[in-house]
């Protein structure tokens, strides 16, 4: 079936099968994605850095290992891309900020160490909204990325570079980070799979911190099975992250073929109505019908606090960001703008080094934490978070998983929301509640609207509920039979 498709269009499972059958090599897989990047980067700008030499060395080593009978698993020899807020030793890591221009980390993030140990080939570092703050990848200090389905539109964000790279075949899979939807929303807008695992299951060591109680690293891929392979490689306890979970981890692949017969699927009533595009709502409704025909019980669920979750999110996330970004002071690394005193140096460096969205969020978070406003804003936001946790907990007593659109709209036009921060924030309305409660969620593509733009379906599960989440996601993928890939005119860069 995969014989007549270009190498760069294969899933990780298909590429791995060819590799083990001796029909291709890791070097050929790498050359295929590098060639694809060469032909599409001028239009997409998915990457900030392509590490051709490092990747070629890793691909050759992967081929040598396989030839010597050493098989390190599903990602062995597979070219992967990394969001540029993940530290890579010896390879520039900027978080798409001017303040980190030229920064070469002295260590690898734990997820990078694990990918390398699994024999994976790291192609390069992908574009993002500066410090992962945004929903369109337009807040990058190095210029925006574009959507391969329509290059006048955004790929979503903040992991928009990773999403565009996977969707177009410039990498077989990628890692992103998800603080309020930054993996799931771009996956939805580019027609691929993206997931945020349970908080605490993937080490954040070496992830440039945005909001530490919300941030979680996760995979972007062309299939649900590929996402499971990537997650199984990167997750697990890590003593270098104090919030890392040290108990039992679910087995992800066990139930992928099991279907949804007998499962109870809750539809969250609050994720519909005003602001939701009709094409998105009807794609979700069609999938619910199919899931019902496949034997699942569809149950209406109400989570009333979801309506104020976004308000809580835009207090908690900036508050944590304002503390985390205090480290960018112009003294130990990154940009420095001189000043007569340490404070002047810091204030000038930060004003010049941070872009407008980061500046806005640092100001917002500083205000929300400042004397006199703390309880009314930050304290109350924490109570909303607790109420959400209670509501989700009660819902999961009735159902196995919850579902919703991933994004209320398909990919919007570049430039449409950049001058209106609040309207940009509203694009994360279906995804950010899971970050507030720490639960996992996955976006699976279910179709295209009449303009040919992808629509994503979100499956949510309780903490450590990844096994049932993957079971449902795999069935959604089978029922959707979504196998479209973006048609992009190739222009050599």
């Amino acid at each position, binding site marked *: 079936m995969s014989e007549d498709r270009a190498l760069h269009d294969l899933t990780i499972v298909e590429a791995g099968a060819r590799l083990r059958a001796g029909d291709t090599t890791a070097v050929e897989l790498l050359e295929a994605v590098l060639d694809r990047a060469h032909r599409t980067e001028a239009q997409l700008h998915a990457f900030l850095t392509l590490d051709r030499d490092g990747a070629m060395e890793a691909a050759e080593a992967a081929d040598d290992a396989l030839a010597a009978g050493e098989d390190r698993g599903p990602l062995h020899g597979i070219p992967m891309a990394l969001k540029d807020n993940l530290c890579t030793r010896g390879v520039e890591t900027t978080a798409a900020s001017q303040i980190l221009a030229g*920064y070469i980390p*002295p260590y690898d993030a734990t997820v990078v160490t694990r990918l390398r140990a699994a024999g994976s080939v790291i192609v390069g570092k992908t574009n993002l909204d500066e410090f992962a703050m945004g929903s369109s990848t337009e807040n990058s200090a190095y210029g925006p990325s574009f959507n391969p389905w329509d290059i006048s539109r955004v790929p979503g964000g903040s992991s928009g570079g990773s999403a565009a790279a996977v969707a177009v075949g410039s990498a077989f899979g990628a890692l992103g980070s998800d603080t309020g939807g930054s993996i799931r929303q771009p996956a939805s807008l580019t027609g691929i799979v993206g997931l945020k695992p*349970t*908080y*605490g299951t993937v080490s954040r060591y070496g992830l440039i911190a945005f909001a530490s*109680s919300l941030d979680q690293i996760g995979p972007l891929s062309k299939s649900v099975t590929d996402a499971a392979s990537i997650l199984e490689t990167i997750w697990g306890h890590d003593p270098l992250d*104090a*919030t*890392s*979970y*040290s*108990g039992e981890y679910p087995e992800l692949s066990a139930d992928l073929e099991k279907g949804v017969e007998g499962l109870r699927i809750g539809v969250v009533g609050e994720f519909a109505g005003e602001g939701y595009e009709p094409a998105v709502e009807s794609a979700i409704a069609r999938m619910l019908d199919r899931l019902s025909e496949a034997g699942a019980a569809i149950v209406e669920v109400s989570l009333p*606090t979801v*309506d*104020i979750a976004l*308000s*809580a999110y*835009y*207090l908690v996330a900036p508050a944590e960001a304002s503390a985390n970004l*205090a480290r960018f*002071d*112009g*003294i*130990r690394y990154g*940009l*420095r703008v001189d000043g007569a*005193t*340490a*404070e*002047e140096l810091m*204030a000038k460096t*930060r*004003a010049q080094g*941070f872009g407008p969205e980061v*500046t*806005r969020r*640092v*100001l*917002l978070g*500083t*205000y*929300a934490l*400042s004397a006199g406003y703390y309880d009314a*804003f930050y304290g*109350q*936001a*924490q*109570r*909303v*978070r*607790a*109420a959400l*946790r209670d509501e989700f907990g009660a819902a999961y007593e009735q159902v196995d998983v919850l579902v919703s659109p991933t994004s209320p709209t398909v990919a919007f036009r570049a430039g449409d929301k950049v001058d209106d*921060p*609040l309207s940009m*924030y509203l694009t994360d309305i279906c995804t950010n509640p899971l970050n507030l409660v*720490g*639960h996992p969620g996955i976006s699976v593509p279910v179709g295209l609207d009449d303009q040919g733009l992808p629509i994503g379906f979100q499956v949510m599960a309780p*903490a*450590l509920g990844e096994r049932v989440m993957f079971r449902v996601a795999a069935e959604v993928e089978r029922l959707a039979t979504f196998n479209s890939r973006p048609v992009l005119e190739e222009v050599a860069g």
Partner: protein
Amino acid sequence: MPVEIDIAHVARLARLDLTAEELEGYKAQLGAILDHAAKVQSLEGEPAVEASHPLRFENAFRPDETRPSLDRDEVLAQAPETVDGFFVAPPALGTE
């Protein structure tokens, strides 16, 4: 709740040296965002606020053993200015 923002004070706390014009722009945007954020005050009830981590577990400790740290020269190579293994910065105290 009408939101009062002393934007110059907030910018000073955040160590951001912004122009008067920039401050005015951010003040207006923060006002709009905080109006939306103030919806958190509509929450009814007093849910118990616990740790935000969804998985309960004990505090994390590592064994109290020495182990290799990052290479000093590699770390200092990223600093804007160093001398003899130290970071160089202007005075932080006694400047006001």
